[in-house]
């Protein structure tokens, strides 16, 4: 298809109006651009990987073709230019270089920009696109052609020639090609023709050697070879014929369509293929079938068919069989695309259902009707299954987030003159899509910090006996109801002294405070905290890590920092699998209901007046000989009513610390549909949300981390106050 292809498509009404199809195209293009970016990053590490080049080419090809069909002409035109360059790479005419990868990544960003503009004809990005194309042309014209082939320059005038793929139904062709015997002397390499054919689709190539004679009798400059090629393609028969157009007259060339296997699933047998090819007659086949040997052997033994013909027919049989199997596998693994808003709505409805089901169970338990109890239990079971299945649909592999960090590491390390590899582990770990969406920014901040402050420059690394290439490892894995994400770098580690000094200078800690390493490192999570002496455009303003903490807190997660000078830093984020429905522990305090996230709860123990007396007013409880501190939630929430004689301590683990929380009574496990608090209540300390109980009562979800922090702050203030009081005395 030539430069008029776009117009032709429009005339044939193949270009759809903006609407649902456009949004599908935009979604698919976004996925293809991610695929393109990922493949480019991988290609940089493996420049000889032809599969990767194929992936890149296909991604661009699809964006270009679909873009033209959906009226994104600018996208199609621009992508065509880049695709042309990669076609040269694919055909071995241009080699992969860092410059090519850089330019193609920049081109990918320009395509993204154009798609974000929704294909509008605005010219905001025109300069950027011109720059990319100019760099590409310069590169293509300067790159020496690989041996034996000339690299034609990318066309300077994009209007000169434009190829838009004309896609047909997928067909399989049997191509039998015997080139003229003097093809070598004409300066044509048959291999390049074969490679052009195979580039059209999936192929099986069999070289036929039966015309090669004895060495002493052979004219070495003549071609004695012929080929059988089985090609499955969507490009149509004309695309195949075009390849042979210059030598068709002097060659023996036949291109036949192979009928697809029948619906009953039967593949053509070897004899049938040979008859169809004209290598064997039906009579000869019937005669040979009388004996007991394998048909291939019998045919070769009888001299009716050459070994090459049998091998070629078997290759065809295998090609079609494997293609059919792949197709069946693809069909059976079919997926449907659903808008995420619909999933969110479904999850909300499940939340409502869980609440109603709790109400039903409670009402039924008060009626003492065995038949109703039976039904309620069945509804409860089905609701739980429905909840789990729905939550599973929203689960996405975290690898979708990981892949974009490769680009980040590559670009930033190049900008800073550092050499850094990003390793990822556990990309298949799944967590809720909402969590994944909110996780991107915190991870970007942490990785930027690692690149800017953590990993040293190559010369400094070499001087300290390290590999000149730094490494950041991003790993994810499940731990109970949580996902643990670990970001480890092998850089210089955190400067404990500098952090402590800065913390003291800013009044965050007393200058003589005894702090564990963990507590010192946690200072970097404070707002505006930075020990960097200079600001870079990457980090150093101290706005990053507190943003990380806020984001992780909003996800109900925790951050732990470990570091060793000269060895590196490890940041561990522990996040809940989902933000929609959690298992909670329902408790009551003075007639009000509260929820503990069950994943944080370790055990519950009784607390009596005698226990309180034993601890002499200190908030400590003796659990199996070990003293555990506790926070009295009545005190925290300012409840003045008289406490019951026996209370419960809910012992929880928050960031490696065991802490008890005193409540009046523990009611039991509760499926908690998380409802966010309204604007007025959302800043109340110690509460992270609410849920509705079966009888319609509201229970508040406790934010244990915040309660501990508030308690610590209040104790520090009290100690300070006492200190001032003593000094005055």
């Amino acid at each position, binding site marked *: 298809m030539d430069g008029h292809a776009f117009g032709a498509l429009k005339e044939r009404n193949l270009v759809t109006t903006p609407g649902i199809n456009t949004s599908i195209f935009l979604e698919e293009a976004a996925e293809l651009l991610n695929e393109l970016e990922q493949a480019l990053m991988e290609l940089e590490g493996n420049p*000889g990987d032809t599969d990767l080049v194929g992936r890149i080419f296909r991604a661009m090809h699809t964006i270009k073709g679909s873009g033209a069909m959906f009226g994104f002409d600018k996208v199609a035109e621009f992508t065509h230019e880049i695709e042309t360059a990669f076609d040269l790479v694919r055909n071995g005419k241009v080699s992969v270089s860092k410059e090519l990868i850089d330019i193609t990544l920049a081109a990918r960003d320009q395509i993204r920009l154009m798609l974000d503009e929704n294909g509008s004809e605005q010219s905001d990005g025109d300069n950027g696109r011109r720059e990319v194309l100019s760099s590409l042309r310069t590169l293509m014209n300067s790159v020496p052609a690989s*041996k*034996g082939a000339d690299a034609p320059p990318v066309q300077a005038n994009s209007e000169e020639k434009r190829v838009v793929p004309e896609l047909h139904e997928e067909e399989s062709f049997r191509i039998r090609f015997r080139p003229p015997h003097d093809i*070598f*002397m004409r300066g044509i*390499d*048959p*291999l390049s023709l*074969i*490679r052009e054919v*195979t580039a059209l689709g999936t192929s*099986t*190539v*069999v*070289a036929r*050697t*039966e015309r*090669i*004679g*004895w*060495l*002493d009798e*052979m004219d*070495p*400059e003549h*071609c*004695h*070879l012929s*080929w*059988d*090629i089985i090609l499955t393609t969507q490009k149509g028969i004309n695309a195949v014929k075009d390849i042979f157009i210059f030598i068709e007259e002097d060659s023996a060339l036949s291109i036949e369509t192979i009928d697809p296997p029948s619906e009953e699933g039967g593949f053509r047998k070897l004899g049938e293929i040979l008859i169809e090819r004209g290598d064997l007659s039906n009579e000869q086949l019937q005669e040979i079938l009388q004996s007991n040997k394998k048909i291939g052997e019998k045919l*070769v033994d009888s001299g009716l068919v*050459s*070994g*090459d013909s049998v*091998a070629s027919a078997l290759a065809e049989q295998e090609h079609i069989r494997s293609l059919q199997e792949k197709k069946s596998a693809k069909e059976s693994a079919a997926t449907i695309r659903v808008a995420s808003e619909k999933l969110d709505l479904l999850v909300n409805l499940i939340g409502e259902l869980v609440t109603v089901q709790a109400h039903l169970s409670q009402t039924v338990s008060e009626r003492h009707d065995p038949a109703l109890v039976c039904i309620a239990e069945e509804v409860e079971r089905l609701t739980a299954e429905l909840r789990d299945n729905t939550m599973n649909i929203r689960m996405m592999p975290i690898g979708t987030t990981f892949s974009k960090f490769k680009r980040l590491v590559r670009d930033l390390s190049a900008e800073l003159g550092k050499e850094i590899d990003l390793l990822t582990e556990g990309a298949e770990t799944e967590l809720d899509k909402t969590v994944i969406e909110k996780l991107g920014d915190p991870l970007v901040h942490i990785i930027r910090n690692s690149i800017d402050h953590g990993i040293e420059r190559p010369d400094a690394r070499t001087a300290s006996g390290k590999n000149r290439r730094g490494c950041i490892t991003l790993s994810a894995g499940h731990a109970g109801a949580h996902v643990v994400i670990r970001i480890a770098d092998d850089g210089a580690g955190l400067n404990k002294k500098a952090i402590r000094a800065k913390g003291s200078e800013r009044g965050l800690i007393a200058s003589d405070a005894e702090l564990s390493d963990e507590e010192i490192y946690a200072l970097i999570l404070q707002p505006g905290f930075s020990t960097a002496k200079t600001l870079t455009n990457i980090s150093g303003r101290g706005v990053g890590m507190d943003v990380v903490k806020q984001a992780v807190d909003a996800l109900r997660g925790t951050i732990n920092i470990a570091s060793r000078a000269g060895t590196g830093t490890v940041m561990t984020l522990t996040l809940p699998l989902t933000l929609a429905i959690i298992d909670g522990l329902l408790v009551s305090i003075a007639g009000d209901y509260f929820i503990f996230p069950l994943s944080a709860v370790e055990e519950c123990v009784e607390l009596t007046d005698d226990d309180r007396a034993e601890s002499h007013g200190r908030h400590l409880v003796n659990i199996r000989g070990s003293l555990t501190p506790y926070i009295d939630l009545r005190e925290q929430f300012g409840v003045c009513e008289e406490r019951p004689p026996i209370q419960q301590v809910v012992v929880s683990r928050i960031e490696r610390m065991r802490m008890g929380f005193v409540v009046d009574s523990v009611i039991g496990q509760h499926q908690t549909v998380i409802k966010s608090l309204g604007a007025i209540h959302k800043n109340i300390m110690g509460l992270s949300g609410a849920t509705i109980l079966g009888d319609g009562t509201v229970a508040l979800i406790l934010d244990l981390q915040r309660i501990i922090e508030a308690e610590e702050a209040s104790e520090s203030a009290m100690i300070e106050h006492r200190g001032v009081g003593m000094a005055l005395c």
Partner: protein
Amino acid sequence: MEGTLEMHGETGMVMLRGNLTVQHAAVLKNLLMRGLESSSRVVLSFEHVEEVDLSCMQLICAAHRTAVRMQKSVYLSGNVPEIFRQAIQDSGFKRHVGCSFDAGNSCAWMGMHSAL
């Protein structure tokens, strides 16, 4: 192309360098014939080959079947450069069974199969 034939007992080592293209096909043919005439076992070394076309492939085929007829053998040595492997794969020489001239599964392309 540069080619030498070195004799190691009954084995003739054909060492090839540079471009194995149709321009040098006649030289390669002569080298292979000399190898087959002077030894019972010819080993072809492509380690330092930089470019290859199909004229070379068909010569290896011819040398192999001629060797079988002479009750001799032709082998490719282990270190085959990537460009050669790719050419074998793309041109459809790679195969599981030898041609009708093959004896004792000595086909050079079958040997390449596991390496490809």
